[in-house]
């Protein structure tokens, strides 16, 4: 087993079959934004079961995500998903929502629960409540700086997962505004949200996935990986829900190599890696909020603070 985990996320069987998963130790299965997302594993439990078996059969850990903002009417489907996850031996379920965390712990106590980035883990005392509620791993809110995350981790001993590359979630809605464009564009749901659409104004750009808004720029912590490693982080996520399979494979390979290097004490970042990163980043790069600045800022490693 490698001394770290690099994971990513996949929404449906088509993406799973067409993605090279070689760089990854674990996969989150399902799309947490929308029930109507094309062939979402969270709505097709037979395909979810098959995917869990496939991922585990390939020697990787299979996690199942859940809806980030579920209404009452979602909960029975979430229960069906949990039942499949438990039956098929999924390694964990990701809960972005406190109600879902509670259902997991009360109805599937044997299934480890990870708390996802939409659950608003902001402080050590909040993290402590979630750990006491049965959470095994936490993704702190993306707004936290590395300094704040470090404090949270030290004060709780929690296993923390960090988003190290990809589009950072910026919000989730109860409804899809892209549906307003169905007729005008002649593109029906569920193809609408897969159009690689960016909301732009002046110097800002955000990616729209219908019910969700993502950062326009890709979070990139490549050159900061040695610092993250030195700080004790071992679980890293590359978000790729809205990306093509090539992104998942090629950017994942760069991070796999960089993390392997960081684990060995190295810190070289060949230009070829940056070419891959740049090729897949349509709007540019940022560090999210890790350095206490606006989420779309990029801080080079030599200027980093608080890591």
């Amino acid at each position, binding site marked *: 087993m490698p001394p770290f985990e690099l994971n990513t996320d996949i929404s449906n069987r088509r993406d799973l079959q067409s993605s090279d998963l070689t760089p990854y130790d674990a996969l989150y299965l399902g799309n947490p934004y929308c029930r109507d997302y094309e062939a979402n594993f969270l709505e097709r439990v037979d395909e979810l079961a098959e995917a869990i078996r496939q991922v585990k059969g390939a020697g990787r850990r299979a996690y199942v995500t859940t809806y*980030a*903002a*579920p*209404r*009452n009417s*979602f*909960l029975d489907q979430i229960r069906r998903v949990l039942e499949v996850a438990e039956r098929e031996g999924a390694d964990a379920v990701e809960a972005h*929502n*406190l*109600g*879902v*965390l*509670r*259902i997991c712990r009360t109805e599937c106590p044997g299934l480890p629960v990870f708390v996802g980035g*939409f659950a*608003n883990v*902001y*402080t*050590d*005392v*909040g*993290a*402590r*409540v*979630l750990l006491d*509620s049965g959470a095994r791993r936490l993704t702190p*809110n*993306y*707004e936290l700086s590395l300094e*704040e995350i470090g*404090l949270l981790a030290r*004060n709780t001993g929690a296993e923390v997962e960090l988003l190290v590359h990809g589009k*950072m979630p*910026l*919000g*989730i*809605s*109860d409804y899809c*505004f892209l549906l307003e*464009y169905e007729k*005008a*564009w002649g593109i029906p749901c569920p193809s609408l949200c897969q*159009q*690689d*659409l*960016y*909301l*732009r*104004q002046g110097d*800002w750009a*955000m990616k*729209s996935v219908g019910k969700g*808004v993502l*950062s326009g720029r890709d979070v990139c912590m490549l050159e900061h990986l040695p610092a993250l490693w030195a700080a004790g982080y071992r679980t890293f996520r590359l978000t790729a829900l809205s990306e093509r399979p090539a992104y998942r494979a090629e950017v994942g390979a760069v991070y796999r190599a960089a993390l392997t290097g960081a684990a060995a004490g190295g810190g070289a970042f060949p230009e070829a890696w940056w070419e891959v990163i740049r090729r897949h980043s349509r709007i540019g790069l940022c560090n999210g*909020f890790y350095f*206490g*600045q*606006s*989420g*779309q800022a990029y801080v080079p490693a030599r200027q980093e603070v608080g890591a």
Partner: protein
Amino acid sequence: MPMVTLSPPILLAPAGSPEAAAAALAAGADAIYVGLKGWSRGGGRGELTAEELRGVLAEAARHRRTVQVACNTIPKPAERAFLIERVAEVAAWGVAGVIVNDLGLLSAIRRRLPALPVTASIGCGALSWADAAFYEAAGATCVVFPAVLGPEEVAVVRRHTRLQIEVMIHMVEEFILLGRCLMPSYLRLQPRPLPDAPGDGQRLLGSVKRGGAGVCSRVCQQPWRLEKEGEVWGDGIFPSRQFSRVADLPAYLAAGVDVLKLQGRSLPAEAVYALTRRYREGLDAALRGDPVAAAPAPLPAHWTAVGR
């Protein structure tokens, strides 16, 4: 229509100033909620100084009404003890409860002040009975749901929890769910010292969730272009929905709602009066079993929280 026999819910009105508080009380609010300067989300839209809060508490006491204080910010660890002692201080003045948007702060206040009612605010993002069950187990006394949850969904929640159920029955729902929005801080995040807080106490302007004075830059209300590979496919602003559930009051009562909340700490006193009066009359009619007329459509701009 049959008479409603359930306990009447509390009509909870907003007050961003002493004048607005007086207007809400005069219009028939059972309770009002206010923000304490520096410690509530969107504080620039209306927070009270400690002195103003004491005055409002005295005024409410004269009317035999109650006051809740919004502490819907997320203090950094260094600020937490300071804020909790401020909460203890205002609780001793006769505040009926506090409203929080962070699980950690809820937990810390519950430990320090076990008898103080604590509401999990709309910023906590509760949308289901399971969320209510979580917050009940975490020690909340009340949980707030947005008006997007109709009476049928509230009835489902009621069957699963003994927690007080509060519905913000008059509100603007922005496109991104409250408590789940990082768009302003993605674009601009400006730390600013927090007056009278210890250590590195600071508000993070741009962080909707963490709160402070003037936090939200309202990115969602700025026009954008929707582009695909450089080609413009559309333009506009994010959609928002105005909810005015006055006509649904009988159904919410039947569903077992405990608190009916009105959004609008940024509203001027006269608008608070008109808004509160409208819902007071509606609620009284519903409690008598009389029909409740729907709110005029479209609503006057001054009735909305953001004027659009």
